């Protein structure tokens, strides 16, 4: 059973202020406090700067080292996954080839494990080697709670808590984005590699 039932959520809804009901309160001033730039706001909401370890053993921070000023792809995986993960990874290998030498220069690919207890840097390294991934593509592990935070913040979630518990539901999506332009999209990892590469190109040229 989910820890928070819908019933509890419903009850808590009664306490939330609402915009748009007969009973809506007085409007607040929209100009209160210092304004934050949209880029800063996006970072605050979605890109926690948690520490991670790459498959080569390097310590990095998610926002500062991996996202800032870059075009990236992000997906979740785990090495013991037998079905969707290897297929998505195989597709991304083709995507990396299609994007050519831009990967590692201005496009970076990140595969984050959803199973950090098992997926140590060494395990990720051998996984990467098995797939012959090229430079510019990092496999990342870290603390369980940090990776869980990233999963939720990046939207690799399901609104049904029971479905959300099954990690197999989170490993088929590839997000792609242009951090400085604040432009993000997502596509299925099981789409044709040519199509995935095309989608990524939209936020590179951006228009």
């Amino acid at each position, binding site marked *: 059973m989910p820890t928070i039932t819908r019933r509890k959520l419903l009850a808590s809804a009664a306490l939330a202020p609402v915009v748009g009901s007969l009973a809506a309160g007085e409007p607040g001033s929209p100009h209160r406090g210092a304004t934050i730039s949209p880029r800063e706001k996006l970072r605050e909401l979605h890109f926690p700067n948690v520490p991670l370890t790459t498959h080569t053993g390097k310590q990095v921070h998610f926002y500062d080292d991996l996202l800032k000023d870059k075009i990236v792809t992000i997906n979740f995986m785990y090495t013991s996954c037998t079905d969707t993960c290897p297929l998505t990874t195989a597709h991304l290998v083709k995507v990396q080839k299609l994007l050519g030498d831009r990967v590692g220069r201005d496009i970076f690919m990140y595969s984050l494990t959803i199973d950090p207890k098992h997926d140590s840097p060494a395990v990720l390294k051998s996984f990467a080697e098995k797939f012959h991934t090229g430079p510019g593509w990092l496999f990342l592990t870290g603390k369980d709670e940090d990776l869980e935070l990233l999963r939720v913040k990046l939207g690799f979630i399901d609104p049904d808590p029971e479905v959300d518990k099954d990690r197999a539901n989170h490993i088929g999506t590839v997000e792609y984005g242009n951090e*400085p332009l604040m432009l993000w999209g997502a596509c299925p990892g099981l789409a044709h590699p040519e199509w995935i590469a095309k989608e990524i190109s939209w936020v590179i040229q951006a228009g």
Partner: protein
Amino acid sequence: MYYNVFGEKVSRARWKEMENAAKNRRELIAAGFNRRDLFKMGLLTSAGYLVAKRGLSARWGSLVPEMQAASPLVKPFVQAMPIMPVKSEENNLNPAPTVAPNTAGGEARTRNHQALTLFPPQKFYKLTALAKQVSVSPSLPAQTLWTYDGFSPGPTFVSTYGQPILVRNFNQLPPPSQNGGFGLPSTTRHLHNGHTPSESDGFPCDFFSSQNASSLYWYDQHYPMQYAGILSTHPGTGDINEALSTLWYHDHRVGFTAQNTYKGLVGYHLFFNQSDTGDETTGFHLPSFPQYDIPMVFADKNFDSNGMLAFDMFALDGLLGDTFEVNGVVQPFLQVQPRRYRFRWLNIGPSRFFQLFMTNAQDQSTLPFWALANDGNLLPKPVQVSSVTIGVAERYDVIVDFTNFAGQTFYIENRLVQNNGLGPDDPPVLAAPGQGNLLLKVIVSGNKNVQDNSVDPSTITMPRFYSLPDTTPTPAVTRTFKFDRLNGMFSINGQFMDCDVVRFTVTRDTAEHWVLGNLSGNWQHPIHIHLEEHQILSRNRMPPPDFEMSRKDVTRLHQNERIELFFRFRDWTGRYPLHCHNTVHEDHAMMLRWEIQPSPQGDTNRTP
């Protein structure tokens, strides 16, 4: 053994997921929104009055705590509802439109016009997508939105059957560095439910860049303004019973439709003819446009703590807003006369389903009204209803009779509770009258001396408008489409959108049956199919309700449902999409490309 709605064996995990969804629904019903529970939850006082400053949160279900941060409170009903201006025509276009794409002149079109010579345009328009600073509420700072010609919603096109038109679309959207976030400045404008040749349809993959980014930055769309059947079943005239009334246009950029339409790229396009004239003294005697025939665009939005429009690009299951706009402004008011009105209602999403009621502000009673058209298609006769449910992209034309309500006030109210991108619960949970989302305040003038030459719907007892086209022709093929959630994305028959993959080809001028099946547990999907209107033959093998005995272009696919549709594919050839119109689902791959070609190029792929 476990089985789904198709009677197919499913895994235990999948069955458990379906069962769980059902359990959650039962739990919600158990938690229910009946009077007593509302009272217990503090939403109603013992006398039945509303509790001040409380109500149903529009987005209490988010899994991410920060995303529950509500938009700044906005003072409602302080500004008049804008009416979109009617689009004015050009004397001519320079360079003149050509059958082949004018690539040298900057046109981004890739395919020849198939009907330009046959139906030469009599009216010409220019429409420009551009960024503009607008006000959505006196409580919020000015917003830079994406507009058509500086308006969001864009200007209302008004066209007449038999008078072909050509619209030259320009893309002058700013580069992404100036966007302040979401939105891809690359567009393709779809005329939603137009019987339009493929190259002018606004196919999602026919996108083109902004003038800032490319030498190809404009695109001509030709609308023949003919009834379906003009080149096939009803040569020379087309089938009058395929007449369309309320259409809308919107950006359809593959992968970015949710962001781009949310940023403002939507508008209305109305079609009139000798029966639906826009003049209440002629034809069907429907309330006159534009005084008494009023298009309304409903949307739910979020604003950040700076009061700026916010779009969560990481909400991959769907996006609900907590602030409600009508015609581009937050909770406006509309002044009307005590007489009959034709309201045209459109839900532009991105993900919310509305169930709209007319709530009397004095006593919270519900005013019945008349459903006149479903998805812009006149019903054979008006149907009296207490509410209409309207998924993303669906339209209802309604007749509301304010004759006996001089001096009173009403709200157009959404009472349908929805908590996430899944869709509303099944069966739907409704808020108590006055406790839903109040979208528009309608103030009826006290002046009782008002002329009304429009027909009284209560006097129409026999079918008077268009007849429903025959659905008895034998289908050339019955195709099945299963909509499912797959690995965090959305699939049709286990596959994802790819512009370069043609999933099946229909033989032009044939009829088919399409079965839409929803396997995705608790998810609901408003399914839209381009080119011709379909009719619902059955929902879970039962006939649809009377207000769905109509021609439609968006059909709501509820939880674990099987719907059978009747289709014809007449007159034109080329590529069209089938997709979910929850724009977040659509952008996350719940779409496919299909084609129409003359015989013998069609196929009979039953599960494409």
